[in-house]
């Protein structure tokens, strides 16, 4: 009566198309781009976006040339003739079935990997296809309303999460923008465009649009908005993970969500909740594919059996997704089909249709040409686990014994949580000793009546022997990344004997996991901006271009303390360094939040704010110069311009510079560590040298010369 049935507004079209682009784009594009274009990913997205915008213009041109009320399949028949048109419509059916099938496979895979690890993939896909069929049954209007209403409910959290994640971005990881050759960049751009070409769905919106002329605007808006979100997401992912680490991940965006810490501590991890974004966005593309496949089927059959085609499309989608799930080869084949055939088809046909409409009479020849070209292409080419049946290890230790891997767990005693005065031991322990990490963690289930839930593990302590043993380390990294076993934001420590450190729990008034977490947060002498996490370890082992300093725990008076650091440089364990050296390293990298020390005369100095700007000098050698701006508070009153203030300023500057220069030089010689962590910044200033040294990191350390210039501002100087 009031709403025009099956007509949608420009806002609804924009939101529908944005969802179609963003779901698969945010989920799959980052790792695909990291693999093909690396740091060129950002430029690739920009190139893809420009191409996508041009494609939107083509879509607008074609839609505006169509007759009033005419559908795109009908237009194809009119332009190319009945038989070639029918063949093209059939190709579109195939396109939507493959796209929808692939998307439902991704959907099912995402759910079984991120939300319901032991549920049946088949039931999940069948369930979502049934829901999609229900949504499709009542036409496009209902679907458009869903996305109209959901748009900001999903986009706002995504943008907020990106905002919080941006704080952890290491900008140097975004540069150089041209890391690989032009081929990588071209492939990346094409892959990006592949995502934006999904906006071609807008062609099918013509008979449903309240105003046909608004399709172009909606389409361009969706491509632009989607492109900007993808750009922001890729930049954040690149800045946090680095391209090598990212390409090893299945869904980097979801992994990112597990690491972001929202201020306030209301939620421990958001990944499970944020999967909602992909749940709805992928569902949008899935139901679109089903809808247009059914519409095209209907056009082929001359408008008969409206609802039957939806069932047929759902069945076809289910078949494709099951094939993709069961056969990796089929998934690869699907990728190739989309890359080599489907995307060119989706772009070429509208252009030819547009040309035909502008130049009537040429349709049949063009159709023959397209079909011949197409032919040539073808020739070439849930289980529930109750809360009380889970155990939550707050800390885990892994040691390498002579021929085995020993895993120790530290649990929270729940009776103590329920009643603070309960008379029981502070924690409970469990040890497993097996030949490797995987066998060890699998064994727990056999020896205990409960399931291990690693989601609240605060601390992971690895023994140095374990880290230095390449086989053990590789097994651990592989299992952790593939099974998403331990959260990436778990704090990482090394120790000589991890089990011994965990056993100190009995001397503490709180669980050792919480104790170590609080210790990092509240240290008096120095405090880091960010603690070292398992995610950092993963990233650096994959990217192999940075320095990671992991705190080493030892026992002192029955309490765990950090009395040295372990350096992992370029993905290679290098050995221990002292706390002072580690602090200087963090200072030179600008990662310190607070530093306290005293001068020779006993004057206490507190560094409260720190800015570091590092750069390489131009020339033949590799000379890295750090400009460090520190704002310090002296624990006594100083008159401005007084001799005392000048003396302290000079002493602090000298103390820092001398310390930095001497310790940096010493460590560059033995154990060949660059504590300034300068290599990954080299790409920003000299791409050629970066590429050259990347193949030989040892030579980089040999050739490197470091200089420091410290500027000191006294904050409590009174004028």
């Amino acid at each position: 009566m009031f709403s025009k049935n099956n007509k949608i507004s420009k806002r609804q079209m924009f939101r529908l198309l944005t969802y179609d682009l963003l779901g698969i784009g945010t989920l799959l594009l980052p790792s695909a781009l990291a693999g093909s274009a690396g740091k060129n990913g950002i430029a690739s997205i920009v190139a893809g976006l420009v191409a996508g915008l041009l494609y939107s213009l083509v879509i607008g041109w074609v839609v505006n040339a169509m007759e009033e009320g005419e559908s795109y399949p009908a237009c194809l028949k009119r332009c190319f003739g009945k038989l070639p048109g029918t063949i093209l419509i059939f190709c579109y059916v195939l396109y939507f079935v493959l796209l929808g099938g692939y998307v439902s496979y991704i959907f099912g895979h995402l759910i079984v990997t991120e939300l319901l690890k032991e549920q049946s993939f088949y039931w999940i896909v069948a369930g979502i296809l049934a829901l999609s069929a229900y949504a499709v049954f009542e036409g496009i209007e209902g679907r458009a309303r869903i996305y109209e209403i959901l748009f900001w409910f999903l986009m706002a959290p995504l943008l907020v999460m990106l905002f919080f994640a941006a704080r952890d971005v290491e900008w140097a990881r975004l540069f150089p923008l041209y890391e690989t050759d032009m081929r990588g960049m071209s492939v990346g751009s094409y892959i990006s465009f592949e995502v934006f070409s999904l906006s071609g769905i807008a062609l099918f919106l013509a008979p449903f649009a309240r105003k046909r002329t608004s399709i172009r605007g909606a389409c361009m808006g969706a491509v632009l908005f989607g492109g900007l979100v993808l750009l922001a997401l890729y930049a954040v992912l690149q800045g946090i993970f680095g391209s090598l680490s990212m390409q090893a991940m299945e869904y980097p965006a979801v992994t990112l969500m597990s690491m972001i810490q929202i201020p306030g501590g209301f939620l421990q991890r958001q990944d499970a909740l944020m999967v909602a974004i992909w749940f709805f966005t992928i569902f949008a593309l899935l139901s679109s594919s089903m809808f247009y496949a059914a519409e095209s089927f209907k056009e082929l059959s001359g408008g008969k059996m409206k609802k039957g085609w939806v069932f047929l499309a759902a069945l076809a989608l289910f078949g494709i997704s099951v094939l993709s799930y069961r056969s990796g080869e089929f998934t690869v084949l699907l990728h190739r089909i989309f890359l080599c055939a489907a995307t060119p088809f989706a772009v070429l046909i509208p252009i030819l249709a547009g040309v035909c409409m502008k130049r009537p009479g040429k349709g049949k020849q063009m159709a023959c040409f397209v079909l011949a070209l197409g032919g040539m292409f073808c020739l070439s080419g849930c289980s529930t686990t109750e809360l009380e049946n889970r155990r939550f290890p707050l800390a885990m230790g892994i040691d390498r014994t002579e021929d085995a891997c020993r895993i120790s767990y530290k649990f929270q005693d729940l009776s103590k949580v329920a009643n603070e005065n309960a008379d029981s031991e502070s924690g409970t322990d469990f040890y497993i000793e097996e030949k490797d990490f995987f066998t060890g963690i699998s064994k727990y289930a056999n020896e205990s009546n409960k399931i291990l839930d690693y989601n609240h593990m605060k601390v992971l302590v690895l023994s140095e022997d374990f880290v230095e043993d390449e086989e053990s380390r590789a097994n651990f990294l592989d299992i952790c990344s593939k099974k998403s076993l331990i959260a990436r934001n778990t704090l990482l420590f090394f120790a000589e004997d991890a089990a011994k450190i965990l056993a100190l729990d009995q001397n503490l008034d709180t669980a050792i996991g919480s104790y170590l977490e609080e210790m990092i947060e509240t240290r008096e002498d120095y405090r880091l901006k960010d603690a070292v996490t398992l995610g950092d370890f993963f990233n650096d082992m994959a990217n192999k271009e940075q320095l990671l300093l992991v705190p080493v725990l030892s026992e002192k008076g029955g309490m765990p303390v950090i009395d040295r650091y372990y350096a992992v440089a370029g993905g290679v364990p290098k050995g221990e360094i002292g706390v002072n050296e580690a602090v200087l390293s963090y200072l030179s990298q600008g990662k310190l939040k607070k530093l306290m020390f005293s001068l020779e005369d006993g004057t206490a100095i507190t560094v409260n704010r720190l800015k570091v700007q590092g750069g390489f000098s131009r020339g033949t050698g590799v000379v890295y110069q750090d400009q460090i701006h520190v704002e310090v508070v002296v624990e006594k009153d100083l008159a401005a311009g007084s001799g005392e203030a000048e003396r302290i300023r000079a002493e602090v500057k000298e103390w820092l510079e001398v310390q930095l220069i001497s310790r940096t030089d010493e460590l560059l010689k033995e154990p060949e560590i660059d504590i300034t962590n300068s290599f990954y910044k080299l790409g920003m200033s000299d791409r050629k040298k970066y590429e050259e040294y990347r193949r030989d990191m040892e030579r980089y350390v040999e050739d490197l010369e470091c200089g420091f210039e410290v500027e000191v501002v006294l904050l409590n100087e009174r004028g």
Partner: protein
Amino acid sequence: MEKELSKNKEAFLALLGESADIKKKTMLLGLNQDIGCFIAYIEVTGGSFLFENSVVGKLLNQFCEMSGEEIYKSLEKNALGISDMTLFDTIEGAAGGMFAGDVILFVDGFAQAIKIPDKGYPAMSLQAPDSEKVIRGSKEGFMDSIKVNSALIRKRLRTPKLKVEEIQVGTRTSTNVDLVYMEDLAYPSLLEEVRKRLNRYEIDGILDSGMIEQLSEEKWYSPFPQFQTTQRPDRAAMSILEGRVVVLVDNSPTALILPTDYNSFIKTSDDMYNRWEIASFGRLIRYIAAFFAMTVPGLYLAVTNFHTQVLPTTLLLSFAAARQGVPFPAVVEVLLMEIAFELLREAGVRLPGAMGNTIGIVGGLIIGQAAVEANIVSPIVVIVVAFTALCSFAIPNEEFATSFRLLKFLFIFLCSWLGFYGFLYGLLLVLIHLSHLKSFGIPYLMPFVGADLNQYDDERDSLIRQPLFLMKKRPIYARRNQRVRLKRKDSDVFKK
């Protein structure tokens, strides 16, 4: 009808048969007591006719002082000035008039029956509506009499454009149903559709507006009401001003408003009477309450059984500690508490007022404290269920709140089976259903969807209720050329 009284009386009595509550009297009228008459009425609807203040009594007294000819003339021309006197040509019509609560008079030599209003059926006096309490605004509520109800609306809308259209539904009850609308605002096609739906079924009886509602709704399987109900005349009047149609049903204190949408169920009457910030805040709270009323128990199950990583560690450990020793799985625990709550609610509604209050105390003490102490349920589940109950009470419309209470069980089932995926699945299912739902052609999710149909003006009264002076247009229900409802009188002064 015949002129002879005996024949009319015979036919009338034959139609009525024997019924103890129908009073029938034969009398003689006229100066010479030579004109027979027959009077019939339902026992309580007529008073003592000799009493001076009774209309029928006065009429009979007058007739006793007139000649036969004068009586016939005054009946034909209603010369005695009885405002609601009606003449019936058929015996069936006369019987219908009597069942409507009036007195029926047959006069010998007069070929029509006369309906004269007297006391009518007994009814309650005006009361404040129980289910839609407001802090600010009228305290009057609808009552059982359709005439009073339409008068209460008329009292607020004193314009000749307000039309009341009466039809009768129910072959045995002949219930009066009034369509009340503003002639120049309501779409004629909407009125046509309403009439069509009211006449869609032939039913023996309509005893409340709820029966009309169920017979006229588009999607019978939807848990969401497709008609809005109200017991407040001011609410009904406000809806009529928006171009909507109000359906009043005799013997029902609940009026139906149509078309409706999701947003209308969340609004309260005093949203318009309060300042915009307070009204908007209240509305936002109610939206959140509606969401939580449906999802909180499910979310609790999804998080504790599947996605423990979401909760902060200390909170999670408290949950785990609280669950120790509870013999049932969490889902059974939640269901037990939810069913206990529904029992309490049902018992509270059915029990007399004073006893109903004690149910809350008994429930709180026994089900809550004792069950926790006996380790039958964990304290956190009591909190979850209590919070959900609070949320459902915050929804201003009872029928609408009930749909969320029902869907809550769907979410409990889905989340206990499929965790957060089940939650998302349920959410999408509900959203798809709502996006397909329409009330007389209006999308149920208006104005969050399809707001372009009214140039996005309806969004001014959605999640946020904008200041009243900005809400210049009527919502989409009103005719397109009649959408302006507010303009400044001194706009010319401002232009200068």
